């Protein structure tokens, strides 16, 4: 019995299992790098982007699943893009909102922001949720563009809204005065 265990380890179950386990486990770092720097599939939680994401948040617990591009997300941000960024009030939290204003724009703010008009400082963006119940720049002010970690490019689920996020077709709300020195 002992002899069989000794010679059989390499080709036995345990030997083969460890071999394949290590082989597949070494693929974890590239996967993590891919998720962090190329693209990631993630869920949208919360009603702040109603009705664009989670339009049935009152009726079911199903959440939208989206594809987020992580490839240089903070370069060349345009109005209308949907971005993910780290919460300026809580560095561990991630937030999904739409870019409504970029550096230099003058925004007419909504409650509860204390000033009626604000100019977005250099290197910052103004983000807002599409829905009513949202904590966005009207709550914490313009955010540094460096906080942006990704852009939502595609909706993957549910099937009836599958496809590219056509952010360029979004009509901006009134009250955004675009910076004049930028080329449109």
């Amino acid at each position, binding site marked *: 019995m002992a002899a069989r265990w000794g010679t059989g380890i390499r080709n036995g179950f345990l030997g083969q299992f460890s071999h394949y386990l290590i082989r597949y486990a070494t693929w974890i*770092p*590239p996967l993590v*790098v891919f998720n962090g720097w190329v693209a990631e599939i993630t869920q949208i939680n919360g009603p702040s982007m109603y009705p664009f994401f989670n339009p049935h948040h009152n009726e079911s617990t199903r959440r939208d699943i989206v594809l987020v591009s992580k490839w240089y997300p903070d370069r060349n941000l345009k109005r209308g893009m949907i971005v993910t960024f*780290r919460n*300026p009030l*809580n560095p561990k939290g991630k937030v999904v909102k739409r870019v409504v204003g970029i550096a230099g724009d003058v925004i007419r703010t909504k409650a509860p922001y204390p000033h009626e008009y604000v100019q977005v400082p250099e290197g910052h963006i103004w983000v807002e949720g599409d829905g009513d119940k949202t904590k966005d720049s009207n709550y914490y002010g313009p955010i*540094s563009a*460096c906080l942006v970690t990704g852009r939502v490019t595609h909706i993957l689920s549910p099937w009836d809204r599958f496809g590219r996020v056509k952010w360029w077709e979004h009509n901006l709300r009134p009250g955004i005065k675009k910076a004049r020195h930028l080329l449109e």
Partner: protein
Amino acid sequence: FRVLFSTFKLLAFTHLFLEHVLSMAPASGPSMLPTFEVVGEWLVVSRFHKYGNGVNVGDLVVYQIPISTSGELGVKRIMGMPGDYVLVDTPVPGGGTVPEGHCWVVGDNLTASRDSRTFGPVPLALIRGKVFAKIQSNWLPKLIRN
């Protein structure tokens, strides 16, 4: 083919190490004299302290400058955490409070430093790590204490 995969995996592992464990970067500029020389020193940065994890007043941190358009990095000392009062050179005369989720950074060389007195509080989420050692021009490492 196998070699390609292995190289790829090694690169990914190294990248993750530099992002989440430790990284090194050259430092330049007069804003942190006498703690750091103007040029020629390398900083050893602990990535465990990313996003302001476990960071305190008095720590030296590497962060992304909030008003930069190219993700420029800065190294300064934290002088205020959320809730602390800042009394010198604030936009509000008489001093203000550091907002939630942010920190107030100031360089050691006050006369030659662009820091929170210029661009306001830095969100903790922009902190890349804490400097815990430096490699001096004579290649000797030196631990940085609070």
